[in-house]
């Protein structure tokens, strides 16, 4: 029952809704008592035959009125209580969403997208179930169950009632036990479904390898094996699920048998009338649901409670990267002083960056190159404050970046990430993502700088073209260029491009770089690249290997050093010449 207390804030907030809902439930329960009794009374009347007077018609009128009130009350409580549950789910979802938006990288490392989605769907569903079905079953089992029992004792016979309801608690036990088993079996069934999903996913992604090794038949056989296992698991689910109806029938049947034997004896002896017995049987029917509800209530509460705790736990996680009290809201200038002693990713053993020092005055360009995994992106991540725990100091504008508000820092930086994630909206809104107030000319200017404007004009809907699953599929190079446009449109003081040109050809690269040079004459740019031609014009180039700076200098200096940079340069010139020889 703890979960009701935990959700107390919500019930308090929505007390009017729940008050009306529960009153309507009480109304329903009371009105529900009428039809069984009326039918019994009418049965007795008709059984005597040759009725006179208006009594019959009054009773029938009462039955009709009860039916109409039942409808109205039911409509009211359904609307109130189910609506309340839906609203709770919505509120919690809003909270979760806003929380996700505040969380840092560490949080998202710890919780994969799929898990977070599961919390936001399955867990919220279990919680809203408490506010809906939970409240309903709780109120219903007490109100309907109690009032029906009382009616049975008053209108029919208390001894018959006490004896006949003996089997009924078994309904609650069944609902609880079978419900638990079914839930467990169902989880297993879902796991089996995921396995099938993963298997299919893998076969589709690896189709070329499977074909190459001529293993189609074997792969199909493997799939069929997984299907066989799935069937076996689902068999258990189906068996348990199919048990609900028959078990209910047996328990209710037992009550009926008692009613027939004990009730029949009483009718025979004249203690009760046949009509009363008919009422009695109808009341037993009315008890089925409340008894079931008690059993289900436990399961709803248990699941809701676990889910609520999980969601709360998630909500209580704090971002490691937060604004200090009285953080500075404006950067005075954008000189970058990077003086990092070392940095290790949370939970990792290996030091990722060590002794990274550089100075980048406002308006200059820095290039960072090196092998995959050398730590290039990590340098950028620290600059963007995705992690705050490192030894050393990173300063922009003469102040530790941790002294600024995140907003101030982020507003100064335009970032083109490696994975250029685009949102499923149109191209225009993707470009002006960081500056929604920008108009079409500004969007086009950014697109031109990023050499994507002409591509966009090729699409039927031009800037209105949708991106993503439902829209046009863009090439890697197009995505990169859109992502550059998104970063430059806000004219940031510092532009960071993290391997943002890897998928565009050499000519386009030149075009973009010279465009940027023009548009951002006095602004700072940091370029991380695989291809050295991206950084060759930089004021300083850092060569990274295994988390350390191994070479540094201008392009000419580095060539003269005959180190890794010079070697890579030669190799890349070769591949480029192969591409160009064709033009």
């Amino acid at each position: 029952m703890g979960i009701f207390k935990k959700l107390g804030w919500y019930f308090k907030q929505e007390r009017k809704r729940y008050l009306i809902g529960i009153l309507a439930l009480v109304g329903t329960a009371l009105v529900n008592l009428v039809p069984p009794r009326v039918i019994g009374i009418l049965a007795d009347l008709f059984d005597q035959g040759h009725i006179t007077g208006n009594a019959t018609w009054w009773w029938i009128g009462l039955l009709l009125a009860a039916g109409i009130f039942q409808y109205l009350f039911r409509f009211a409580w359904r609307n109130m209580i189910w609506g309340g549950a839906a609203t709770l789910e919505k509120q919690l979802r809003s909270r979760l969403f806003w929380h996700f938006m505040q969380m840092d990288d560490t949080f998202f490392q710890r919780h994969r997208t799929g898990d977070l989605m599961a919390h936001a769907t399955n867990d919220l569903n279990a919680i809203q179930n408490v506010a809906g079905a939970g409240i309903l079953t709780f109120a219903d089992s007490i109100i309907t169950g109690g009032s029906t029992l009382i009616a049975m004792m008053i209108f029919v016979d208390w001894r018959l009632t006490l004896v006949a309801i003996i089997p009924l608690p078994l309904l609650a036990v069944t609902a609880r036990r079978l419900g638990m088993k079914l839930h467990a079996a169902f989880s297993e069934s879902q796991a089996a479904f995921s396995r099938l999903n993963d298997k299919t996913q893998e076969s589709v992604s690896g189709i070329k390898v499977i074909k190459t090794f001529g293993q189609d038949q074997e792969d199909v056989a493997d799939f069929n094996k997984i299907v066989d296992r799935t069937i076996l698991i689902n068999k258990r689910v189906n068996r348990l699920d199919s048990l609900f109806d028959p078990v209910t029938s047996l328990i209710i049947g037992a009550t009926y048998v008692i009613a027939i034997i004990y009730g029949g004896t009483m009718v025979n002896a004249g203690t009760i009338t046949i009509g009363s017995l008919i009422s009695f049987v109808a009341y037993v029917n009315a008890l089925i649901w409340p008894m079931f509800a008690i059993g289900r209530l436990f399961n709803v509460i248990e699941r809701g409670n676990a889910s609520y705790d999980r969601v709360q736990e998630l909500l209580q996680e704090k971002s490691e990267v937060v604004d200090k009290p009285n953080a500075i809201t404006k950067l005075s200038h954008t000189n970058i002083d990077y003086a990092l002693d070392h940095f290790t990713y949370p939970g990792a053993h290996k030091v990722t960056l060590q002794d990274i020092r550089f100075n980048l005055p406002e308006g200059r360009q820095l290039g960072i190159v090196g092998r995959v995994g050398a730590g290039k992106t990590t340098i950028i991540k620290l600059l963007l404050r995705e992690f705050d725990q490192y030894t050393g100091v990173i300063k922009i504008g003469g102040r530790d970046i941790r002294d600024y508000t995140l907003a101030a820092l982020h507003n100064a930086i335009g970032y083109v990430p490696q994975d250029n994630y685009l949102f499923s909206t149109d191209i225009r809104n993707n470009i002006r993502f960081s500056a929604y107030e920008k108009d079409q000319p500004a969007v086009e200017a950014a697109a031109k700088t990023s050499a994507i404007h002409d591509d966009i004009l090729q699409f039927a809907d031009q800037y209105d073209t949708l991106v993503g699953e439902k829209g046009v599929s863009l090439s890697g190079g197009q995505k990169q260029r859109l992502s550059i446009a998104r970063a430059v449109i806000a004219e940031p003081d510092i532009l960071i491009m993290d391997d943002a040109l890897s998928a565009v050809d050499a000519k386009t690269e030149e075009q973009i770089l010279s465009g940027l040079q023009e548009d951002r004459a006095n602004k700072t740019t940091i370029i991380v690249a695989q291809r050295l031609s991206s950084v060759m014009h930089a004021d300083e180039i850092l060569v990274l290997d295994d988390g350390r700076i191994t070479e540094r200098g201008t392009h000419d200096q580095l060539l003269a050093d005959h180190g890794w940079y010079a070697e890579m340069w030669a190799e890349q010139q070769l591949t480029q010449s192969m591409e160009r020889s064709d033009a």
Partner: protein
Amino acid sequence: MAAKNPYESAWNQHIPVKEQMKLTGRLMSFAKYYKKQFISAIILSFALAIINIWLPRVIQEFMNGALAKHNATTATILGAGLVYALGTIVKAIVQFGSNFTFSMGAERAMEDVRRQLFAKLHTLGMRYFDLTPAGSVVSRVTNDTMTLTDFWNVFMSLLVGIFSIGTALVAMYINNPTAAWIVAAFIPILLLATWFYNRYSSKVYRHMRAKLSELNAKLNESIEGVSIIQNFEQQKRVDSEFEDVNNDYLDSRRAMIKTNSLLLSSFLNLIYVFALTAVLIHFGIMAETAVVAAGTVYVFSSYIQSFFNPLGNLMDQLQFFQDGVVAGSRIFRILDNKELAPQQNPGADAVVQEGKVEFRHVSFSYDGENEVLHDINFVVKPGETIGLVGHTGSGKSSIINVMMRFYEFYQGQILIDDRDIRDYPIEELRRKLGLVLQDSFLFYGDIAFNIRLFNDKISDDEVKKAAEFVQADSFIEKLPNTYHARVIEGGAQFSSGQRQLISFARTVAADPKILVLDEATANIDTETETLIQDGLRKLRQGRTTIAIAHRLSTIRDASQILVLDKGRIVEAGTHDELLAQKGKYYNMYQLQMGKGDLSQD
């Protein structure tokens, strides 16, 4: 992760009625292999309907008989109890049987569709996979098929409803024909209510589902793109957009709740009371002149209930019909797909002996419009290596694609040991042609599985030897559980170099006669780079090799080098011959020499 969008929505799709009928017919035909289950379930549910009207009858007889006359003996009372108890037990058994047989029949039939789909996928050509996002293929096999169980259930519910209503009507008719007619008069109202509910609620329901898809898609996207949102400080805007969708969904849900509370079970209950009232009025009028037995009143109140009860369930189920049809149309689009993998000649039985490869005037296009290979001619003698050089899009990969029979070509001939490639059974080609791909794909399982794949004839020892041969053993031995170390999805825990080595070992273990090599351009960590070069050299030993090279050093000793450009061979010859030509190859080589100078420094 390509299976990104499990929230994909097709809820607003419209299919013409005629098409719906056709699809329904085809979907029903999937069920025919489990005819026995389905028919037994139907028979059992009919039996259940009979029991359901028989049990109240027992009580009625009891009441109208001995009980009404107050002369029941203990034996009659116990007898009635016993009959009822036995009836209940039979009912429970029948109920279980009907539910369980049906759900298992539906389950098996549904899994059969999955099997068919999955097997069909393996017969499709690569072009299908080029054009279809992986996520949607997966969704067809798993999610869409899931809908079918509900779809078949619609028909079962319909039958159960008809049985229940039919038997109840007959039973009432036997008891009191006029009363039965009165209840029957409510049938049009019920049909109207069902029709109206289905029409109206399915609209509301679809709207709600669409909103839910949108909501989940937005949530998913915002989580995946969270760092972009944060870096551009757009949390507030994205949140307010999410709030809009969240509110829309709430509104749609409230509309659904309202519709259901207005029209579903509470409404049926209202109609039930109306019908009951009408029958009681009839009995009331009868009772003015005669006697209406109490048991008869009881039995009618019970029959009217079984008349109305199944309708709620049926109304609830009907919405799945549309879902099933939509899912079915997508499933059939795969099953009917004609984009099959290239076929071999009927009766193909040739065996690759030597491993000689020849391309004769081969031209090829992926889409039938733009030619990507034009009149390609070359011969590779057994055991020799041919190198393919050229920039991206020059046609190197296409040569591999037609050679491996991933795509069908229509002009020219590819010969192996002087026989048409189509004369070899595909299994033979797969056994004798080994392809090493640029991006090495690893499967979920362990290392040993990834080397032998499903070929159980390759012993543990051979797996080990293959790994040793390409020097993959050094890192494998260091893993916990060595060859039985788990490989997670896509082999993400290994570096791309390590993945390459495992895929080399895979090829060595399969021991092909002809090797087709697509050299990796990916960035590989230093430690493994030399291992990979070694591995490649070893792989080529004694095998006819067709190699795409990005580093000229790999193919310097090739017996022939082809320089490709726009799908044509523009230069051909040995390394020395090509140098003498002073063409493209010469230029490339010059640059490589320059690089050599630098590194020797």
